[in-house]
């Protein structure tokens, strides 16, 4: 595969580059500040202080009321496991979980595992634009519901759920239900506050490497008084709520990344306009394309396209050759044979579900990079459609009769 030094990186929902300021903040803790923060000699106190400073920065970014409500984890996957299991262990008399069909596997797979452990799980459906219906959520609540886990922003489509409002409704039905949100894709991208819009959320999980910190570090907010028990045990760290020697450098970097994100929220307007320019241009220059989640409230950095009659992996491969790195929900890219569970839940037509392309930007994405994508993409799609048996290049439309053929055979 070509290693392109100047590649245009448009896969920021997968991971982001570490900000130079973050790396600078981390380096001393790999060098002379290597001490274990739990050690008693004075040399270790610097690491302890640095962790607390980072905790303060995370708390400020998410609008937590108190620093002590922030725990550091190894990432959002750990956080999501801890949120679900921890809430259930703290509410042993309750055996029901509500989540959605479009969660990240770090919630979805845990929910399926809970089913194997005898818990009842309700998976809320979404509509064609990827939206939840509040009535479905309210109807799903039962007297033994322990936790409601609803992601804040979808990693594939960027569709956002009104988690704050949904959480408020859940609490009105039953204040004992723990409300969790996986905010991996929203923290640092849009302003949010656990004291205001998300005031009814009990647990929020997030990851460092989605906001220009390093991989292997994350954080979770657990509201004071929330019914939750520690998941990782075996040490006194994090006030006994998350055992394990702290990833000091990672945590310090995460703190710095949160400070930078707080200072960069103005960037979201630029990303929003890039998103809109990209989507308008793609729809104008390429026939038979859907913007998945169009019509729903979405993250400013994510565009998910579905191109009919071509396959996503081929699109990615051709883009790589043009120096663009992105991702796809197609079956072939995932190693499974099934296209993305998110697009399936949204009932994206199968003529298009295999041809999905996710473009996700960051504050490091330049306008020129999006211009370049706008230039390349029609050429790539056309070259693949020329090979496709379902496409007629002379009319630049689906081959005549193909709809009928497909419908007769598969509908």
């Amino acid at each position, binding site marked *: *595969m070509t290693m392109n030094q100047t590649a245009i990186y448009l896969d920021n929902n997968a991971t982001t580059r570490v900000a130079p300021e973050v790396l600078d903040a981390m380096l001393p803790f790999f060098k002379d500040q290597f001490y274990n923060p739990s050690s008693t000699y004075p040399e270790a106190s610097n690491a302890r202080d640095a962790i607390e400073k980072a905790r303060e920065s995370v708390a400020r970014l998410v609008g937590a009321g108190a620093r002590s409500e922030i725990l550091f984890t190894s990432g959002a996957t750990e956080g999501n496991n801890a949120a679900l299991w921890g809430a259930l262990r703290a509410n042993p008399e309750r*055996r*029901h979980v509500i989540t959605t069909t479009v969660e990240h596997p770090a919630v979805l797979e845990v929910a399926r595992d809970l*089913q*194997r452990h*005898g*818990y*009842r799980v309700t998976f809320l459906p979404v509509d064609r634009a990827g939206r*939840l219906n*509040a*009535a479905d959520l*309210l*109807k799903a*609540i*039962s*007297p*033994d519901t322990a936790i409601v886990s609803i992601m804040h922003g979808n990693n594939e489509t960027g569709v956002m759920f*009104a988690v704050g*409002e*949904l959480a408020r*409704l859940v609490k*009105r*039905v039953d204040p004992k239900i723990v409300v969790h949100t996986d905010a991996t894709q929203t923290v640092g991208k849009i302003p949010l506050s656990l004291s205001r819009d998300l005031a009814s959320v009990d647990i929020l999980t997030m990851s460092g490497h989605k906001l220009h910190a390093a991989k292997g570090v994350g954080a979770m907010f657990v509201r004071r008084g929330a019914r939750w028990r520690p998941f990782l045990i075996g040490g006194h760290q994090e006030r006994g709520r998350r055992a394990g020697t702290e990833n000091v450098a990672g945590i310090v970097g995460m703190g710095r990344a949160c400070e930078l994100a707080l200072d960069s929220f103005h960037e979201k307007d630029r990303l929003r306009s890039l998103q809109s320019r990209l989507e308008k241009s793609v729809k104008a220059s390429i026939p038979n394309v859907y913007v998945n989640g169009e019509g729903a409230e979405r993250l400013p950095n994510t565009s998910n396209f579905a191109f009919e*009659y*071509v*396959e*996503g*992996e*081929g699109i990615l*491969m*051709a883009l790589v*050759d043009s120096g663009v790195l992105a991702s796809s929900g*197609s*079956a*072939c*890219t*995932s*190693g*499974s*044979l*099934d*296209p993305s569970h998110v697009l399936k839940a949204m009932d994206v037509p*199968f*003529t298009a579900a*295999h041809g999905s392309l996710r473009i996700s930007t960051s504050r490091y994405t330049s306008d020129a990079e999006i211009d370049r994508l706008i230039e390349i993409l029609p050429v*790539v799609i056309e*070259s*693949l459609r*020329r*090979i*496709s*048996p*379902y496409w007629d290049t002379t009319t630049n439309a689906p081959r005549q009769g193909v709809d009928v053929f*497909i419908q007769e*055979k*598969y509908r």
Partner: protein
Amino acid sequence: MPWDYSNKVMQLFRDAIAGKAGTHFGRIDVPDGEGHHGSMQCGDAMEFTFRVERTGDDPKADRIMEARYQTFGCTSAIASSEALCRMLEERKITPIQAISIQNADIVDYLEGLPPQKLHCSVMGAEALQAAVVDWARKRGVALADLGIDPSQLVEDEGRVVCRCFNLTEPYVRRKAKELNLRSIDDITSAIKAGGACTSCHHEPGGLQDILNDIWGVQPPAVSAPSIPLPEQVPSSPLGRNARTPYQMAKEIERVVEKIVRPRLQLEGGDIEIVEIRDKKVFCRLLGVCAACTGAQQTLSFVVEDSLRDNVDPEIEVIPVTV
């Protein structure tokens, strides 16, 4: 998942999408043989055509001179299609000889394929066989006389085992034997069966049963883990005069219909009851009421008061704005 393609796969894919001279996508207008395999729903599909050169009167002496494909699929599906056409044009063999081209030959030509992509090469081999059967029919060649059972090559009608990819038991059996598929993973890699919902893996008559039947392996006895049923939450005993939740909901709906809705409609608004939980009524204001700055007041003064006066003084009205 990282790609693990050979240079050959990448080269053939790149040549094809760049439309380089010597690539083979396209369609022969009046083909001597035509075959299809796969479907869009499955994520890959191939349409394959070839042209033969006739020598004398014996159709069995026809030689495949030109081969073309149209393929919907990933990098390796396109590369496999291109490989198949190149192999045929390089070898200039008869259609009868072409039947012996197996997916493994395509894999060799591609200098290897990742295991989960083997089905792309199988698609090529299947489309080729279907095209040869088509050629035989058009040219009046009785494949059966040559010891080839054409129904074995393409038809495989029968009970559907893998419902996601619409693959039948005869097909799965034939491919398992031909390609020496010994496990469910082998089957999924080669022909995709069982690769989506996975429910056909261990159901009666499913993939494992077919494998056991072919290879004579007995499955280890596994007792299904018993999943305890969720405990029933006892409902609180109702007093003689208390309403059941159903009666309460009915009365709330009645008051909304008779009293609340007409009042809101007078002003161009409306209301939708989203859910009723005990004495909590979740509702959405519609029309002008939704945009009204006094929506909260409307809810408490009009909706909540009416329900409290007419149904139960403890009723709470909760606005839903999503």
